[in-house]
């Protein structure tokens, strides 16, 4: 069987991944029409290109259905429990930078730090009779972070898209999401909490620790790593 490399199936992430491999002498190409989700790899024999949604790549790696994969470190940490046991970071790729941040209304002039958020959460709960809601799709990362920081009286509510709009729509009081320029946050009258983001993410090449490696696949991996100038 061929070594399977999973890469994001569309958009800038796909283009930049193709560019990055291309710069290392490995050509990734979509097969057939622009809309077909299959492809090929030239430059390293014995490899197969699998085009996937970036969000599914962590799970495919963890289940060993692909050997290598390109996705964000945020998605790996969010979607995989004990991610270090399932995948290994081979190298950051230098694009797809995004910070996972907690953001609150800009009008909250009294809130700059987690300390403030925690105090506001306590007062909010007393006044409104329910916990301060934080809309996010990064449940694991945000819960871990807030537990570690000892923040209380909040509730994570699920938001899979247009998260920045939840505060205005009164379905949350704060949000936690990834941002690169902060433009969407500003447009929705939100500001970032704290000096450091919860997590700094970028596109990264991962190796599966769960895949079964045949002789041929191992050989292909060695050739691929050599082409990319990486250690296993």
């Amino acid at each position: 069987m061929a070594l399977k490399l999973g890469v994001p199936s569309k958009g800038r992430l796909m283009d930049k991944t193709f560019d990055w491999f291309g710069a290392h002498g490995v050509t990734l190409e979509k097969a057939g029409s622009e809309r077909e989700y299959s492809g090929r790899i030239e430059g390293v024999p014995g490899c197969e290109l699998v085009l996937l949604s970036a969000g599914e790549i962590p799970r495919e790696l963890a289940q060993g259905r692909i050997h290598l994969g390109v996705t964000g470190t945020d998605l790996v940490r969010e979607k995989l429990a004990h991610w270090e046991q399932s995948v290994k970071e081979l190298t950051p790729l230098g694009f797809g930078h995004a910070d996972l941040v907690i953001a609150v209304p800009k009008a909250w002039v009294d809130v700059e730090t987690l300390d403030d958020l925690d105090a506001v959460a306590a007062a909010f709960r007393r006044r409104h009779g329910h916990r301060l809601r934080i809309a996010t799709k990064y449940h694991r990362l945000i819960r871990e972070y807030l537990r570690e920081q000892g923040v209380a009286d909040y509730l994570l509510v699920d938001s899979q898209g247009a998260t920045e709009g939840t505060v205005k729509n009164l379905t949350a009081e704060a949000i936690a999401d990834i941002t690169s320029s902060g433009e969407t946050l500003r447009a929705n009258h939100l500001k970032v909490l704290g000096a450091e983001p919860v997590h700094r993410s970028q596109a990264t090449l991962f190796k599966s620790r769960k895949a079964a490696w045949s002789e041929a696949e191992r050989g292909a991996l060695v050739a691929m790593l050599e082409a990319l100038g990486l250690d296993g």
Partner: protein
Amino acid sequence: MSGDQALDAEIVRISEAFRAAGAQVVDLPVLQPAETLLDLYGEDIRGRAYTTRDPLAGELVLRPDFTVPVVQMHMASGATPARYAYAGKVFRTQELDSDRPPEHDQVGYELFDGSDPVAADAEVFALFAEVLSGLHLRAATGDIGVLMAAVRGLSAPDYRKAALVRHIWRPRRFRALLDRYSGRAPMPPGRMALLERFRRGDDVLAEAGPMIGLRGPEEIRERLAVLAADAEQPPLSAAETDLLDQIVTLRETAPMALERLRDIAVDMPAITAAVARVEARLEALAAKGLDVDALDFEGGYGRTSMEYYDGFVFGFYAAARPDLPPVATGGRYDALTRALGGGAEIPAVGGVIRPALVQALREAG
């Protein structure tokens, strides 16, 4: 005997011991109403509970522990004193610790009796020690009440003490608050200037952009007033925060710990009554034949794992197996009965044993 049969036998043995100690055996539903229950737990258990929806009953949760449902049941009946025993599974997702199963058996004992809390503490601990005897477990104890008394005795305004008590179970935020109140942590950048303008009467909300969300301008102004007032407060003295540090880092055998607490009480008289309870409890345990010299006492024990305990706390650990969770844990939770009592309250103490760990330790010999 197969593993399941051995586990069943262990559950029966422990339940029988609890029944013989005077407990009424109760059976509680696996599905519990989520709303009242989940609010009482700390973020950790709350985030790990399995919730589901029923078309009539609304949001339900697979019980993540027994104590809260037992307290709820007891407070609804109102009869006291009472002793309850129960056995069954609890359910918690194990995202962070995926090697542990999402459900495990617990056998528990809860004692509701306000007449002599120290005797009740000793009764529960001695019963657990007896049921677990022969397993070579290390017992650790503590008393959250000492730390609470120390915080309430600080020379600080009530809202500062309330903020600290709220975070007794979250050591990191507790520390951050102490650093702020003692002037060791800097204010966020721009905060001083903001408060200055607020004090002058400037409309500091006007330039902040449109008001969105449920938290309104009067709430923001209210907090600004609190912050402005707090900035005028004198800092907590290093002497006082040092005494708090001494309490939370205390780790000694029980008699030595008592000596240290007495020394601390000389400089911090507010903990005198709480320290007297520690002493009376040790005497009551010794009178029951327990070797209190071998008992560990940790001033910070129970702060991270047991969100609703507010007095005596204890745990039994397999000394040779640090990879295992505690074999048994328990403690006093008077405030929980207040939260669930609808005006009534009753001092209560109890704990749970994990029979699967008892059985595993027995098999390992």
